[in-house]
């Protein structure tokens, strides 16, 4: 079978690169010299946990966890002798079943990849690869249309902003198109600051041309000549690939003067964000590009009328732009057929946390959380119990099991007390303390609050203090009420989305996991056994006296003779969990107890008079 032309695709997203995929690519290139094989690299496949990922086409074989030393085997066995390397094919983490072909993997089977259509398929640093998969075809068509027709198409498609808020994209385009002014700007929000989210990064790294194409079409529709991509500096690879894509698009006449002979001029520059979460808010982002502290301002005027340098400005998220070429090529009707009544198209999520298949997924709007977590995500890691799913990052909320059948769309998630957000979805299991999660998010928003509005600046600080008190054993009756009162004040008294939504993680955890708050405050217990203040470690009878825990204890709190039952001195123990971690899984003789610490009786104050 020497003649069959094969292509070997090596993933070089940030995840796979961290696991040495560039070296694997180099080794493969060397090994296949003289064979009818093309080796190329692609952006993210979305299953970073399985990385480095190597795909062999046309057989569609998916190799996971490939190491440098596996390269000779792949070449000898698969390429030269047509024998798939069984050992390296993907193994389902839940069923342990070996699934060799890419498109049979359940993780991908249930997805509908539109925005991610080219991620993992094309070499993002080679425009010819993108062109072979119809990149810039939408631009060609758009340039033949009237700008008003383009806006009408986007409106009819029902596309809503993928940054999280869900504002109808077509309306935004119409406002900016109609705004008076000769100079207008197109901005792309790639300041993906939500902790636990990497959708935009993967799109920029895997298919930068889709974003550029969407922006150029937008520029033509609103008559702008200049676009900026505001990308966070923490994404060096995304910035590098965008830069290459911009240069290649210029060389091919998709950017610059007289694009494709249409007489339309447009160019794009990258602005490196400097690390401020609040700059994801549109007015803050704009003022940041202008060279200021990135603080939001009052709206109206909206950016559509007065944006960058006071000019009409269209600002959309990375994924919103990536949808545009598809809408132009396939028509608004095609797009509007996907999804639900009020949420059209697909949703891209970064599915992470305590889940078997972590990764980047794309599903039609309207599928349920259960389908995402169990059918695509493969359920909870290590057969633990599901506890909550967090969407919307620091602006969203945690939903319990009873909400698993909630359809994923803008409105249903808001109704449940969370929000779509830009696409982070973090799964939590029985070992996750919900009060600690609330504290975690407040710690984040408190640090990221820009300080302009007093309720946000001081309110988040107060909420954080109360939450810290609760997880550290100083919770008081009335704390939950105080949290709710502060949350209300911050929500109504803040100017921008950061403050208005900052209390959401606290409010949803109180709403759905009130018992955990109460356990911390009244029973000195952390039901998830996570908060150090409330737990103690104990060695039980199954101990074989191997001494591992004793040798690893940093404070020498563990005593015991070799091959005899060991003991932890509770006075010395600092609850670091080292013993729990090193105890051999087969022995499993360390237990964590909670709710056992007796509370010190409150000192009684006596007022003596007379």
């Amino acid at each position, binding site marked *: 079978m020497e003649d069959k032309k094969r292509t070997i695709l090596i993933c070089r997203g*940030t*995840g796979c*690169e*961290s*696991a040495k995929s560039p070296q694997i690519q180099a080794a493969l290139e060397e090994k296949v010299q003289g064979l009818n094989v093309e080796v190329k690299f692609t952006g993210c496949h979305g*299953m*970073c*946990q399985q*990385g480095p990922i190597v795909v062999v086409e046309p057989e569609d074989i998916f190799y996971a966890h490939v190491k440098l030393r596996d390269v000779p085997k792949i070449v000898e066995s698969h390429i030269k002798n047509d024998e798939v390397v069984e050992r390296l094919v993907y193994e389902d983490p839940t069923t342990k079943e070996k699934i060799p072909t890419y498109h049979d993997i359940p993780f991908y089977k249930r997805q509908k990849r539109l925005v991610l259509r080219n991620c993992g398929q094309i070499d993002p640093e080679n425009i010819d690869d993108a062109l072979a998969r119809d990149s810039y075809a939408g631009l060609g068509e758009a340039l033949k249309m009237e700008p008003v027709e383009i806006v009408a198409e986007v409106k009819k498609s029902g596309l809503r902003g993928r940054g999280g808020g869900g504002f109808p994209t077509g309306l935004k385009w119409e406002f900016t198109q109609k705004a008076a002014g000769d100079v207008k700007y197109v901005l792309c929000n790639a300041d*993906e*600051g*939500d*902790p*636990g*989210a*990497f959708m935009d*990064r993967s799109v920029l790294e895997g298919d930068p041309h889709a974003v550029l194409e969407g922006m150029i079409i937008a520029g033509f529709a609103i008559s702008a000549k200049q676009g900026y991509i505001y990308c966070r*500096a*923490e*994404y*060096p690879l995304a910035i590098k690939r965008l830069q290459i894509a911009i240069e290649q698009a210029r060389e091919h006449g998709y950017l610059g003067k007289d694009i494709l002979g249409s007489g339309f001029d447009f160019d794009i520059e990258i*602005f*490196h964000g*400097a*690390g*401020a*979460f609040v700059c994801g808010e549109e007015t803050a982002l704009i003022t*940041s*590009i*202008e*060279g*200021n*502290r*990135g603080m939001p301002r009052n709206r109206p005027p909206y950016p559509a009328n007065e944006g960058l340098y006071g000019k009409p400005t269209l600002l959309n998220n990375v994924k919103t732009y990536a949808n545009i070429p598809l809408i132009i090529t396939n028509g608004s009707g095609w797009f509007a057929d996907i999804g639900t009544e009020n949420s059209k198209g697909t949703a891209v999520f*970064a599915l*992470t*946390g*305590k889940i078997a298949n*972590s*990764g*980047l997924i794309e599903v039609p709007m309207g599928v349920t959380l259960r389908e995402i977590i169990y059918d695509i995500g493969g359920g909870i890691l290590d057969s633990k119990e599901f506890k909550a799913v*967090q969407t919307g*990052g620091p602006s969203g909320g945690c939903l319990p099991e009873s909400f698993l059948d909630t359809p994923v769309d803008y409105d249903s998630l808001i109704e449940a007390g969370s929000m779509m957000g830009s696409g*982070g979805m*973090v799964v*939590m299991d029985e070992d*996750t303390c919900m009060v600690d*999660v609330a504290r*975690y*998010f407040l710690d*984040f928003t408190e640090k*990221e609050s*820009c300080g302009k509005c007093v309720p946000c600046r001081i309110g988040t600080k107060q909420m954080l203090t109360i939450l810290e008190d609760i997880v550290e054993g100083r919770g008081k009756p009335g704390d939950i009420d105080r949290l709710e009162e502060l949350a209300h004040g911050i929500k109504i008294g803040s100017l921008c989305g950061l403050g208005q939504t900052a209390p959401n993680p606290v409010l949803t955890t109180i709403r759905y996991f009130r018992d955990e708050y109460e356990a911390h405050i009244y029973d000195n217990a952390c039901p998830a056994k996570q908060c150090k203040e409330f737990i103690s470690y104990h060695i039980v009878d199954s101990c074989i006296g191997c001494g591992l825990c004793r040798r690893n204890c*940093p404070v020498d709190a563990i005593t015991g003779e070799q091959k005899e039952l060991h003991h932890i001195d509770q006075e010395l123990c600092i609850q*670091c*969990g*080292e013993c729990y*971690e090193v105890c051999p899984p087969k022995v499993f003789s360390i237990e964590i107890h909670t709710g056992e610490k007796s509370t010190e009786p409150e000192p009684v104050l006596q007022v003596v008079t007379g």
Partner: protein
Amino acid sequence: MDKALETIFSQFEGKREEIIPILQKVQEEYTYLPEHLMEEIADFTHVPGSDIYGVATFYAQFRFTPTGDKIVSVCRGTACHVRGAPAIYEEITDQLGLEGEGTTEDQKYTVETVACVGCCALAPVITINEEVHGDLTKKKVRKLLKKEGRKNGR
């Protein structure tokens, strides 16, 4: 004027909107923003020094003290948090003999936390300079730091 600073300024026109890119270039060159250069940036952009300082302090990226040879960034994103980032952070600071974020006395390491590296599927994650290390445990951290040429085991 500093030669390196001169080269940086030559790439700009001295406009207000160039402040952040200038600060980024300066930090790239010097690893931090030295105080005496702030005045020069102010003169160059015709903006009061207090404004330059205001912008610089607003963004997490900018530092005002020199860093060590290697920058260890511990991700504190949500996925990392629920998969044990706090313990990883503790282990790193312990191993390097630091109380929290900061630079070791021998100027070899600077430890900082970052909001999210965007490698959530590999949580918990740290980066050493720009290299990403994922799926960490305390044990792997010890091995990694040992490999990085630092031995501070118990």
